[in-house]
């Protein structure tokens, strides 16, 4: 919203103060002001009122005229002018030689063989409107030679406030409310608005008007006749233009002017078209042509202003074309109303049509404003069109009132909230300057909140704190730390696990952490041959590529592998992120915090990276929980899983996740020459599992005995099976078992297992070791394991 400093100064005397500094303080205390400030008319000089004394057609140009212009000096000046509206006797704005306008300095100028000693100016050239149709018309009463800056408010400081920062301040959608803030910041009084006293019309008949729907909180109207003026005074047009509105006609301009001044949207109906006003909704949808000529679909939820049963305006949004003020309108019925904010907002969304009026109504305007706005309208109307007169009394239906708000608090409340001391007098002065009624007894304050603040933003004590502190200025705050007691801070297991996992993967295994989205990537996954698995979907996604939440991070991670194939022939990526596994019995999403790891290589074979990945998972379990993982083969259930070597990762007998190889179809679509393996584990479950801790065992002082057994393992037998062969055989002297060698051909899978025996108390005899080895060997033979003699 653009604001005019001149307009603000209509209501508060800011003389002698630095305006830019005030604007800056406004930004820090009230609402954000955009950086660029416009100094309107500052560069304009040397433009005076002049009269065209003669007009001759240019001999060879159809457009140009040769004028003689009187600037009041008695001497006539030759001017060549291309404007179509020149005529003898017309008064206009004239830029004399040496004048500056639009960044140029006027000098004698040759135009089609004639010299022009100055320039007649149009309003758009002067920068006071967008009217570029001809030179400016100036009324007869202005003496020649007068500098136009002395008769019109051309010079002004215009600043823009970010509309978003006014969301919660319905009172700031007009200059008068803004002026109140400036008055409070400057410590100067706010002047009252000049309004017409409406009680004088009380004896006149009322307007036929009835609120039939409580979405209309208040409707105030009056009927005015005998309007003759059609074009607004220059100063009104300049202000509208500077604030971003186009001048239309006097009556429409005046309603807009009141809106920009008081924040109260108004609408003027041609009284010939509106005789009995009804405010209501319709039972069925219909179409309606608004005054911008657009046919709009109106549904049964949209509040309408009607003439009897015929809609004439969309309440709070826009008037209809049929009842619009036109050139021959002499009688108007004025609307100054208040509508339910949410209803206007929703209608705006449905119609996808936001207007200056709806923007204001959406903010919960003060319904107390409707009548003063009519008083102000009549005051200005009669000021500029003295023949106009009200022909009805003020007709006002106030259906829904906001309850008045009175708040009580004491000094200690303010002290506690602010952490500094702001004295009672300052509090009283500040609140009064903002229109609050304050009573101050001892340490207690009783505050009546003004109506323009009760509709929305000041309803409780804490709201008062903001009023006091923002005017006090946050820059003036003394800054202090707290005096709260100290307690140790313990990190959650989950957080600890998460950070450790990241460190292990990055520092020890040189993996790269990535982030991805929480939904499946429709296009990318399909391109790789993965279907999107059914899951809960976004209800309002605007992009069809992102509608289904992911059940696993592996598919999205494979898409990321694909996009990184050219990065390196060998890399691993991981992410700790969320997946959603359908809904639980309460209908809520089953969300899991998962770790997904994918290794890709064109250098190592699939077996190597598969075991690399196994080692990575093992290191995580070992470092974080000092425990061992186990692996149980499982059936593939997703299209990206290779059916062979797919294993459930188990921790303490419960499922932790999965490890596997990417299905050759998908793998081939990513890179025919590369191998890809993946794992996904539940971070929350890992974090929740028991930490076995470090169990220290004193190294034996006696020599240990190592015994190697080479064995050929038959097909479908896993190490975890043959491990059972010595699990219960070693007594307390079998201290360690490890694989020291493996040998694989197409037909043979041979491993050499080293058994280490030792005792903390004595030197072992080879006989007792041999006895154990014999038992182990027997067990192995039962599993069809062949022992190769050393």
């Amino acid at each position, binding site marked *: 919203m653009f604001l005019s400093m001149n307009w603000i100064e209509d209501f508060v005397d800011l003389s002698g103060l630095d305006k830019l500094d005030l604007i800056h303080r406004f930004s820090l205390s009230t609402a954000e002001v955009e950086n660029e400030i416009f100094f309107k008319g500052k560069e304009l000089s040397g433009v005076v009122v002049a009269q065209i004394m003669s007009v001759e057609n240019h001999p060879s140009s159809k457009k140009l005229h040769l004028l003689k212009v009187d600037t009041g000096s008695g001497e006539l000046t030759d001017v060549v002018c291309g404007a179509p509206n020149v005529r003898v006797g017309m008064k206009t704005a004239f830029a004399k030689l040496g004048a500056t306008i639009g960044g140029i300095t006027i000098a004698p100028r040759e135009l089609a063989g004639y010299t022009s000693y100055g320039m007649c100016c149009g309003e758009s050239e002067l920068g006071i409107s967008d009217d570029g149709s001809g030179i400016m018309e100036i009324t007869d009463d202005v003496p020649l030679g007068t500098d136009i800056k002395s008769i019109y408010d051309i010079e002004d400081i215009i600043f823009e406030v970010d509309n978003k920062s006014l969301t919660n301040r319905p009172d700031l959608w007009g200059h008068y409310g803004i002026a109140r803030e400036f008055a409070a910041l400057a410590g100067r009084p706010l002047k009252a608005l000049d309004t017409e006293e409406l009680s004088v019309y009380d004896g006149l008949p009322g307007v036929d008007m009835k609120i039939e729907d409580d979405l209309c909180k208040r409707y105030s109207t009056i009927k005015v006749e005998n309007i003759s003026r059609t074009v607004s005074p220059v100063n009104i047009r300049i202000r509208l233009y500077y604030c971003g509105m186009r001048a239309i006609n006097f009556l429409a301009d005046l309603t807009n002017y009141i809106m920009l001044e008081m924040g109260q949207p108004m609408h003027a109906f041609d009284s010939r078209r509106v005789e009995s006003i009804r405010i209501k909704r319709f039972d069925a949808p219909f179409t309606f042509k608004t005054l911008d000529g657009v046919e709009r679909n109106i549904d049964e939820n949209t509040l309408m202003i009607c003439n009897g049963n015929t809609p004439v305006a969309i309440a709070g949004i826009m008037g209809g074309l049929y009842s619009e003020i036109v050139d021959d309108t002499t009688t108007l019925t004025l609307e100054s109303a208040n509508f339910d904010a949410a209803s206007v907002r929703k209608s705006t969304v449905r119609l996808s049509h936001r207007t200056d009026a709806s923007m204001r109504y959406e903010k919960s305007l003060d319904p107390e404003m409707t009548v003063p706005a009519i008083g102000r309208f009549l005051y200005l109307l009669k000021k500029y069109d003295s023949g106009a007169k009200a022909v009805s009394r003020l007709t006002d239906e106030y259906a829904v009132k906001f309850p008045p708000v009175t708040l009580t608090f004491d000094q200690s409340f303010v002290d506690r909230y602010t*952490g500094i001391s702001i004295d009672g007098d300052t509090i009283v002065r500040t609140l009064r300057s903002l229109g609050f009624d304050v009573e101050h007894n001892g340490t207690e304050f009783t505050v009546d909140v003004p109506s323009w603040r009760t509709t929305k933003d000041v309803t409780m004590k804490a709201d008062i704190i903001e009023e006091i502190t923002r005017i006090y200025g*946050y820059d003036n705050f003394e800054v202090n730390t707290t005096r709260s007691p100290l307690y140790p*801070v313990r990190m959650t297991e989950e957080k600890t696990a998460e950070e450790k996992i990241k460190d292990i993967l990055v520092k020890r295994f040189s993996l790269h952490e*990535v982030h991805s989205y929480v939904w499946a990537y429709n296009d990318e996954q399909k391109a790789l041959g993965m279907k999107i698995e059914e899951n809960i979907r976004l209800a309002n996604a605007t992009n069809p590529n992102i509608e289904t939440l992911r059940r696993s991070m592996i598919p999205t991670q494979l898409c990321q592998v694909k996009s990184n194939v050219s990065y390196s022939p060998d890399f691993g990526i991981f992410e700790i992120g969320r997946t959603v596994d359908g809904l639980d019995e309460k209908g809520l*999403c089953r969300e899991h915090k998962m770790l997904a790891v994918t290794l890709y290589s064109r250098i190592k074979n699939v077996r190597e990276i598969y075991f690399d990945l196994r080692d990575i998972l093992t290191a995580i379990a070992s470092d974080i929980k000092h425990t061992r993982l186990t692996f149980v083969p499982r059936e593939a259930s997703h299209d990206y899983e290779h059916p062979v070597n797919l294993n459930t990762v188990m921790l303490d007998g419960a499922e932790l996740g999965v490890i596997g190889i990417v299905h050759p179809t998908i793998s081939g679509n990513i890179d025919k020459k590369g191998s890809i393996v993946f794992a996904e584990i539940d971070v929350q479950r890992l974090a929740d599992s028991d930490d076995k801790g470090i169990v220290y065992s004193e190294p034996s002082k006696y020599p240990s005995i190592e015994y190697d057994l080479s064995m050929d393992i038959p097909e479908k037998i896993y190490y975890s099976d043959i491990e059972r062969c010595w699990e219960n055989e070693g007594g307390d002297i079998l201290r360690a078992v490890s694989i020291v060698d493996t040998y694989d051909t197409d037909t043979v899978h041979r491993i050499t297992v080293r058994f280490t025996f030792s005792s903390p108390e004595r030197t072992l005899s080879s006989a007792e070791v041999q006895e154990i080895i014999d038992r182990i060997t027997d067990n192995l033979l039962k599993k069809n394991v062949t022992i190769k003699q050393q």
Partner: protein
Amino acid sequence: MDERILKLKTDFEQKLAEAADLNGLDSLRVSYLGKKGSITALLKGMKELSVEAKRAFGADVNKLKEYAAELIEKKQEELKKKQIEREIRSMPVFDITAPSACECGSYHPITLVQRQCEKIFKSMGFTVEDYSEVVTDYECFESLNIPKHHPARDMQDTYYLENGQLLKSQTSAAQNAILRKYGPGLINNGTPIRAIFPGRCFRNEATDACHENTFFQMEGVMVDKDISISNLIYFMKTMLSEVFRKDIKVRLRPGFFPFVEPGFELDISCLICGGTGCPSCKHSGWLELCPCGMIHPNVLREGGIDPEKYTGFAFGLGLTRLAMMKYGVKDIRDLNSGSLKVLSQFTDDE
């Protein structure tokens, strides 16, 4: 001296001169001084000599033996020295200036910035909390003083799910749970609530270089008796100065957020120009960084905490934005792209 001894001595001297390496020298030693060596063998030829001559011969052989041993030792020293020299000369010069091929892993830049922030807050007694990404309407709105039909719900373009839940549009969605988790400790033991909760947030909007539908925030709350605006400014200034590792000026402007009252927009002095004005701060000298404020009484009440007894502040720091500012990442979409060309550069930054 016996002819034979003299000859052997000459032979030895010649052979010694010829010995070029330690192996040759060793065989030379064995062939002269070994048990079956030629010097020892000389003694076998003493039988026919007289006792007198035997003694003289024996003494000469021993002298030769000593002489040879001494020379061999000398020569050995010499050869050892030469060999070391050769070894030194043969060591190739490695080009240490060549780039390292060591493959380093990398953290996501958000992790780095998040860790830095967490570290600072942990040092100031804050606990670090985590929260789900799918939340209920109550968590994200109702409990935060944003009732149904409140216009603030329009301000955020929220991703709703088919089951009525939603993807959290702000980390504040965890506030109620945090207040409920630590409220009893505050009320019963006087333990102040000090918590930060970093997390992913979602907004239903089109993406471009500056806009993402998925981004990270870090929310912080502190609740105790007598927590004030003055404290809020202190914590924000201290924390931000630590994050950027320089003294940061902060300023507050009124800002409207339904879950705080008063609410503020916090600006920091521009990191590029320090406040004098430059293109990064649009010549204002300030950068808008994070919304914050005093926790709204309704939010405290909804969290089971009496707003008449306790006050608190809350802030929401844009971790994604912070990471972009800190590392100069221009396109926000790079962060979720998974592109290792981008991400592999963030090795560590503790």
